[in-house]
């Protein structure tokens, strides 16, 4: 606001500044202008620096040196010269039965019979229960690169038995291993599958409903109070905090419609759950959450279809639905898809409503259908972040990289769709 006074100051005398006065006045105004400009640029820089810091922080935690130590050396577990990594399921099973306490075995049996598990799972179990590879301490990437000598000295002093290795917490095995209470052996397969199942249900429900509602509002609805109420209601819903949808899902879907969401109506109750806290509930909750976004985006896409196209279709004798189905929708489809992909990329990162709906805290078994217990990638990240130990931070960072990759893929495909098909009409 200071600039205003300087402009006006010339008026006080009733004349505009001239000569030296003008030069000084101008110089002052330009100085103020460059100050403000610095602020505007700084604001932009803060945004960019924040994004960079966020990415740096995640990468810093996802890679780095670790001090590891095995309780039992894997080399000593070789049977008849066959190393652990190449043993068959039967050999691994015997090994487990010999070395693991029977109480623990029984618990694992009840989660999923050991005989039915895959070789990779059994191998992971042997590593977890028998070899017991322990990561004693982990260091972030920047220390690992810049201060290696100090770390080596520290390891030599504190953990004389341990080896120091460089570890990427994000590995192919991290994607394929299931949940584990040992950070070094944990993976995101269960969570990733849970996310995919949930998002599939969300898409199946929200896309047709959203596009249907958008068609109604843009093509059929006349300006009556009910349609205005519908429109206002949709924009209101778009602003409701996501956690409120979680509360709705908990009370209505998980509790109120328990026979439906637990699968009892279909005779498909998952014995491990037998309540409404299932993938179906999660997917439906997210569908309600993204529905307003899908509707609003689809409406914009449909509105952008030129009127001449509809008139041409009517002139040829098409009915209204024929016009919509054969002409309006195909033209609006790229826009509708872009908007829906954006909505899905929002849904895949949603955490709060799913915590409220009742995500499971620990699942080692893959979801088998819409009536299974669920956990999703963001929930896994949340749970790992909430643990105090450093190594859970490390795997949380690795899981964040997976989530960001998913998110960026979805966004990039939306942008590609938009650029490829955008503006075929001059409106």
């Amino acid at each position: 606001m200071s600039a205003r006074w300087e402009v006006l100051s010339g008026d006080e005398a009733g004349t505009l500044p001239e000569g030296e006065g003008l030069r000084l006045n101008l110089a002052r105004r330009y100085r103020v202008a460059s100050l403000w400009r610095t602020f505007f640029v700084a604001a932009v820089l803060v945004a960019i620096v924040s994004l960079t810091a966020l990415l740096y922080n995640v990468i810093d935690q996802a890679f780095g040196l670790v001090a590891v130590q095995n309780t039992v050396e894997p080399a000593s577990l070789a049977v008849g010269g066959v190393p652990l990594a190449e043993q068959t399921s039967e050999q691994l099973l015997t090994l487990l039965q010999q070395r693991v306490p029977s109480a623990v075995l029984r618990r694992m049996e009840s989660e999923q019979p050991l005989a039915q598990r895959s070789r990779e799972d059994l191998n992971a179990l042997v590593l977890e229960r028998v070899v017991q590879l322990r990561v004693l301490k982990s260091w972030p990437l920047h220390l690992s690169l810049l201060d290696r000598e100090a770390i080596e000295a520290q390891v030599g002093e504190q953990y004389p038995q341990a080896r120091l290795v460089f570890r990427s917490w994000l590995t192919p095995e991290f994607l394929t291993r299931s949940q584990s209470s040992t950070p070094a052996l944990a993976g995101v397969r269960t969570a990733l599958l849970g996310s995919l199942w949930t998002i599939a249900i969300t898409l199946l429900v929200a896309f047709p409903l959203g596009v249907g509602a958008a068609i109604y509002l843009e093509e059929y609805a006349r300006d009556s109070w009910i349609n205005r109420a519908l429109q206002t209601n949709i924009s209101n819903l778009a602003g409701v905090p996501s956690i409120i949808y979680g509360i709705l899902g908990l009370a209505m879907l998980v509790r109120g419609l328990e026979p439906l969401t637990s699968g009892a109506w279909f005779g498909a109750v998952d014995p491990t759950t037998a309540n409404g806290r299932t993938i179906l509930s999660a997917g439906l909750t997210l569908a309600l959450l993204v529905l307003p976004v899908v509707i609003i985006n689809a409406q914009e896409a449909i509105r952008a279809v030129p009127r001449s196209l509809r008139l041409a279709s009517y002139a040829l004798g098409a009915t209204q639905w024929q016009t919509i189905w054969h002409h309006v929708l195909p033209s609006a489809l790229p826009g509708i898809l872009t908007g829906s992909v954006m909505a899905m990329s929002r849904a895949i990162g949603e955490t709060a409503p799913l915590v409220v709906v009742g995500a499971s805290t620990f699942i080692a078994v893959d979801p088998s259908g819409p009536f299974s217990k669920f956990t999703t990638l963001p929930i896994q990240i949340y749970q790992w972040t909430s643990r105090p130990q450093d190594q859970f931070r490390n795997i949380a960072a690795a899981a964040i990289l997976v989530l960001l990759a998913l998110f960026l893929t979805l966004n990039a495909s939306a942008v590609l769709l938009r650029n490829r098909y955008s503006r075929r009409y001059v409106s």
Partner: protein
Amino acid sequence: MHVVREDSSGQAADGSATKAESPLDLRRRPRVGERIIQGLLLLCGLVSIVTTLGIVYVLGKESLLFFGSRGVTLAKFLGSTRWQPVIGEFGIWPLVSATLSTTTIALLVALPLGLGVAVYLSEYASPRMRSVLKPVLEVLAGVPTVVYGYFALTFVTPLLRSILGRNLVEIYNTASAGLVMGILILPLVSSMSEDALSAVPRSLREASYALGATRLETAIQVVVPAALSGIAAAFILAVSRAVGETMIVSIAAGAGPAFTLNPFRAAETMTGHIVRISGGDLSYDSIDYNSIFAIGLVLFAITLTLNAISRRVVQRFREVYE
């Protein structure tokens, strides 16, 4: 709405006369299929109404149960500064105060910076610069909030603690949650404000330049005041978003209600409390279960009011320039 109905285009003027001779029957026919489709589409739209009614019903019903519980009264809920379910104290102020402090900090970050970014994008940046910055802001706005929570806890909090001292700043604190939330909301403020700034007619800027104003004077004294209602709407929406934001605060702000406005202490916001209570093993019909609905109702009322005000402001703004 540009609706053309088939009954005005599908029938000939002399329908009955041509009936006998013409092989084409051009009478208006009842199109049952079309009506059914229209009905189905309306049903799709009604799902959103059902959602709203569902939210209101669920929040209302469970809140009534909550206030019907022993020892819980509306006066105590809105008046007491202690939230201790164990001894039957349900005063919402500790939760509100935490929400207030995270929201305030977030807005202190997001509003000036967001507006700064908006002015830069709309008044200063070259088209090429814009095409680089816009996607950066879009990514910033879209990063899942749980990632921001991680960022707050593992980066911003240690940073604050090393700058301000470990004794002053607790491991969980509302300051770091608020700062990160500000970064999350910044793109929302900047993109809405920029839309408002871009909608200001070019003639206003040119008139200002013609009077000898600098680019800054034009931006601050002409363009921003002209777009003020749009910017105000963005600000109000930012408040609503900050109040409803959940994951950042539940990760970084702390667990356990505390009636404090000190930003360096741990405190639990309304949203954080709902997440913590429902994340544990929650038994239905317990007073804890009912209490999250009462908090949800307060949250819903606040955000709904803010959103309604924001939309009102935008509508006024449109009337001025169209």
